[in-house]
Every structure is written in structure tokens, then in C-alpha cells.
């Protein structure tokens, strides 16, 4: 089943007199449950692509269908609802709210969506168990290690059971071992059927994905898929 269908997507930034084509006529289809790595040098447009996929940014031209629905024409509030229920974000710098505890950070998307407190508490408890954070529920981000912070962020990104998980350099601020741990966590979520799109500079991390999209100058330079088993051996 097709989850994402981009058709002739363009994104132009106006920087003073010059127009910068961050994305130039991108056509891309991603099926539900895929594990995609987006790679490319800085300024290649991979972050812009991720922001567009996450409905944080609007294309200048082209259409974006998410789960068969044209989301480019939605009102800001409707897009917010899509972000809330269908899309999860994991950021390089975690983006946890410093004054909230781990449990409160995980509950944040549910709180914003108006989920009743009882349901929230139950789901947060489950998520804390799933991500091995039981003992850290009432700790604030500054009392957590980097790996724990990213686990909280992933728990938060997946608490609404989104169809699409977008990760922007998820291991960028972590040491190798912790990064590995976080990648396994994301891959486990992908194995459960969640579509995973990772933007990374890390060739080793990209190589683990079932499909690698190489970006350059706002275009897709190459788009390679292999069997998951072969990628695991190459690590």
C-alpha cells in the first residue's frame, strides 16, 4: 500500500534577490512499512524533504498524498491534526521540554490532542515499560542520559501510533553504542509496521535501511532498494 506519494514537488526559498531551489521536481513513492534512509551532502535538500513530509513546511508546487489523501491543500488546523495522529518526529537534539518529566514529555502529544487523563496515564505507563524507562518516569530531561533522552523522544513520537516516523539524524548527538541502541529501537518499531524515514550523514546507518535515497542539489540522485538481510551483514 502506498503511504506517501510526492508528485512534482518543488520548494523554492527566496533569499534576497536569488531563488534557491531546495527541492526541484521530486517524484517519490514510499510504501507503508518501508525503512528509508535519506542521505546526501549538506544543502542537498534532505532536511527540506523531511519537513515537507512532516507537514512542517509547504511545497511551492506539486502535490503530496499521505495515505491517499492530498495533504497539501489542507488548512493549517487540518495539517496539525494529521501531524498529531499520523506523523511522529525524532530530532537530533531530542527537543524535550526541559521543565516536564519524562512521563509528561511522552504524554505531550496526547495532551495536545485532548486525550483523557486516564487513557494518557495508561499509555504512558505502557510506553515507559516498552522503552525501558520505568525508573525514569519522573526525571526531567537534564537528569537523563543522551540515550535515555532519545528514548523518551521516540516514545513521545510513537505514543499516538503514527503511520509515519520521521527521524532527523537520530544518532547525531549520541555516542556509537547509544546510537546503535536507538537505531535498534527505531528498527524494531519499523518491524512492527511503522514506516521509518531517517535523514542521516552516517553511511553505516543509511546502509541498514531497506532503501536509500541519495539527494543532491534538490533532486533525487539515486534511489536503491535491497533486501533487509543483506544490509544487516554489511554493518
Amino acid at each position: 500500500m502506498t503511504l506517501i506519494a510526492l508528485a512534482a514537488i518543488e520548494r523554492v526559498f527566496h533569499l534576497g534577490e536569488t531563488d534557491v531551489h531546495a527541492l526541484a521536481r521530486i517524484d517519490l513513492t514510499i510504501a507503508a512499512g518501508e525503512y528509508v534512509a535519506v542521505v546526501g551532502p549538506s544543502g542537498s535538500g534532505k532536511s527540506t524533504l523531511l519537513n515537507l513530509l512532516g507537514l512542517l513546511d509547504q511545497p511551492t508546487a506539486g502535490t503530496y498524498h499521505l495515505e491517499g489523501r492530498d495533504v497539501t491543500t489542507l488548512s493549517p488546523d487540518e495539517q496539525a491534526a494529521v501531524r498529531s495522529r499520523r506523523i511522529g518526529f525524532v530530532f537530533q537534539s531530542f527537543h524535550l521540554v526541559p521543565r516536564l518529566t519524562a512521563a509528561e514529555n511522552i504524554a505531550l502529544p496526547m495532551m495536545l490532542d485532548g486525550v483523557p487523563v486516564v487513557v494518557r496515564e495508561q499509555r504512558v505507563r505502557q510506553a515507559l515499560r516498552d522503552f525501558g524507562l520505568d525508573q525514569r518516569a519522573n526525571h526531567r530531561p537534564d537528569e537523563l542520559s543522551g540515550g535515555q533522552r532519545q528514548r523518551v523522544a521516540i516514545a513521545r513520537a510513537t505514543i499516538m501510533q503514527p503511520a509515519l516516523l520521521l527521524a532527523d539524524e537520530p544518532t547525531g548527538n549520541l555516542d556509537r553504542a547509544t546510537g546503535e541502541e536507538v537505531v535498534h529501537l527505531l528498527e524494531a518499531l519499523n518491524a512492527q509496521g511503522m514506516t521509518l524515514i531517517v535523514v542521516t550523514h552516517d553511511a553505516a546507518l543509511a546502509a541498514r535501511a531497506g532503501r536509500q535515497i541519495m539527494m543532491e542539489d534538490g533532486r533525487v540522485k539515486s534511489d536503491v532498494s535491497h533486501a533487509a538481510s543483506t544490509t544487516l551483514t554489511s554493518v
Partner: protein
Amino acid sequence: MQYTDILRFARDAATAYPLRTLLSVLAMAIGVASVVLLTALGDGARRYVVGQFSSLGSNLVIVLPGRSATGGFNPANGITTTPRDLTVDDAAALLRAPAVQRVAPLAVGTSEISAGGRVREVVAAGSTASFMAIRNFQLAQGRFLPEDDWRSSAPVAVIGMTIRNDIFGNQPAVGQLIRLGDRRVRVIGVLKSTGQGVGMNTDELVIVPVALAQALFNSNTLFRIMIQARGREQIEAAKAQATAIIKARHGGEEDVTVITQDAVLATFDKLLGALTAAVAGIAAISLLVAGVLVMNVMLVAVTQRKAEIGLIKALGARGSTIRQIFLTEAAMLSLAGAVTGYLLGQLGALILRQLFPVFPAYAPGWAVAAALMTALVTGLLFGILPARRAAQLDPVDALMRH
């Protein structure tokens, strides 16, 4: 987002930056406190003056000798004939007026009082038995002047509390003989202490029958004639009748001034009420300043929490939700400031009342309500701009900053 969640989120956000929150709450508190305290002062002054005038007696009409135009000094007054004096007979004639319940002539002069070797100067007032009812005097000991013929100059006196203490110390005063000027009079009563009032201080007053006073001062004129009308609605009638009677008695010339206590009271009431409102208005400017400060603080908060705003947008918060969060926070700051300021202001008024017990420094209800409303409204109004700015933040830009 549920309202309880918005409240909790805004509260946590406010308490996460204690200094910033404290400062804006303080600014708002000072504004509200100054409105409460200053209006308490203004309204206290109004109540004090009104209270003092009311203590003169109720339904009071006062006849003064001489015509005084309300328009101030009129040179024409200077060339008319000298006004006729008010006499005890004038006062007695006023009893005929149907709207008049009681009349008390009043002759005032200074005299010397001595007893047991102590001497002091006093203000002596000559009047009649009805003086007590008209002026609402309370007796501490003994009785007031007897219901006599006004021409009788019985050698009796009612004295004020201060004089009683000065002359007799802790000896009993009632029944004692004292010397007043060149007369020997017997003290028959002592007035209850009332403190300083408008006009005469009754604590330092000696009241004797009007005929005795006139004999003492060697004069047959009166200082005032005090009239008590039969009721509040009869005051104007009593005034008109008194004027007519005196005019008839003075050969058709209107050479007296008749004032009603109500008119005097209303003037003071209006004057001091306006003063209170003016003071409240000045204090309200500080509320406006506090509102600007809350806006400033909220704008700083939006900048400080840019990443957080971007994040909750990414997590699916709608623009309206973000606006609500920031407006709620601004309202909380204002409310906390308003409540703190209200308590501070009331505390200040309480201290003021403790220090000056005669001064009724209570903030009027309208001022308190207006101060609290203004605080909330300015807080919310000045919260709109920061809240809009937060809601319009570009999430990509906000998240990139980190």
C-alpha cells in the same frame, strides 16, 4: 487540548521562569495595590468629612446672620445696611413653622472657667434643652440643660469631657460649683467624648442656658439658630419657612443665610468623590504600565521558548491551542498580580486604619472591582500580541534554532 491541561501547562511554564514571573506579578501587584490604597485614602477622606457633618445632627437647617450670596463676595453687599442681629425671639418665632420640629438658639463666646484653684479658657455655648436632641449629644454623666423658659438664666452648665478632666481630675464633677466668667454655676452634666469634629470641639465646650450666655457676653445676639426639620423631605420646606419668618420679622429684608446640612454634605461628598476617582485614575496608569510589562515578559517568553513552540507545533498543536496557552499564561500572571495587589492594598488600608483609627480608610467596592478588572483586561489585551506571535511561528525555523 483540555482546559485543565492548558491551565497546568501555562502554570508550569510560568513557574519554570520564577524571576520573570515574579517581576511581572510584582508590577501588576503594585498597580492594583496603589489603586486600592489610594482610593481607600480618598474615600476615607470623603467618609470622614461626611461622617463629621452627619454627627452635627440629622435634618439640620442652620440660620446664620447676614446675607451671603453663594456667588462669592459681591461688592453690592458692602453698601447695604448692616444686617440685623439674630435674637432669641427670632429663634422662638421659628417654632411656629410647620416643618420645624425643634429649634435651638446658639450664642457662642469665650470665657474663663475656674474651680478648685484651676483656671482655663473655654468656649461657652448658650443654648436650650433642644440643642442636645438637634446635635445628637450623648451624656456621660448627669443631665442636660433643663426644659425651661428660654429667658431663664438658671446657673447650670454642661461641660465637655476634656474640661471635666482638666478641672476635676478624677473627682466627681456633677453637682460641683464652678466659676464661669463672673458667674457661679453648678455642673449638672458631662458630655460624652466625641473627639475632634467639624466646627466646635464638644470636648472643650461649656454649655449654659442661652440667657445666661448672653448675660455673660453682655450681648443679645445669636451666633446661629439651629433648626431640626420634621423629616428629610421637610428640610427644604423648613428652610423656606424659616427664611420667610425671619424676613417678616426683620422688616421684609432677607438679611440671614439659611443653609441646610444636606447641601453642605452633598458638596463635600461630590468634591471628595471626584478626588477619589481622580486618584484612582492616576493609579490606573500604573496598571497600564504593568500591562505593558506583562506584554514584554510574554514576548521574551515567546522568544525564549521558540524551540518548545516549534516542537508542540510539530507534535500537532493547532495555532489556536498555542494562542490559548500563551493567553492563559498572561492571564495567570495578571490574575496573580491582581490578587497579590488586592491583598497588599487591603493590608495597607488596614495598617492605615490601625495608625489613624478615626480615619475610615476602606477602599470603595467599585475601585477594587475596577482595579481587578483593569488588571485582567490589560493583562489579556497585552497578552494577545505575544500569543499571536507564538502561534504564527514557523515550526521549521523554530526547531532549527536548536
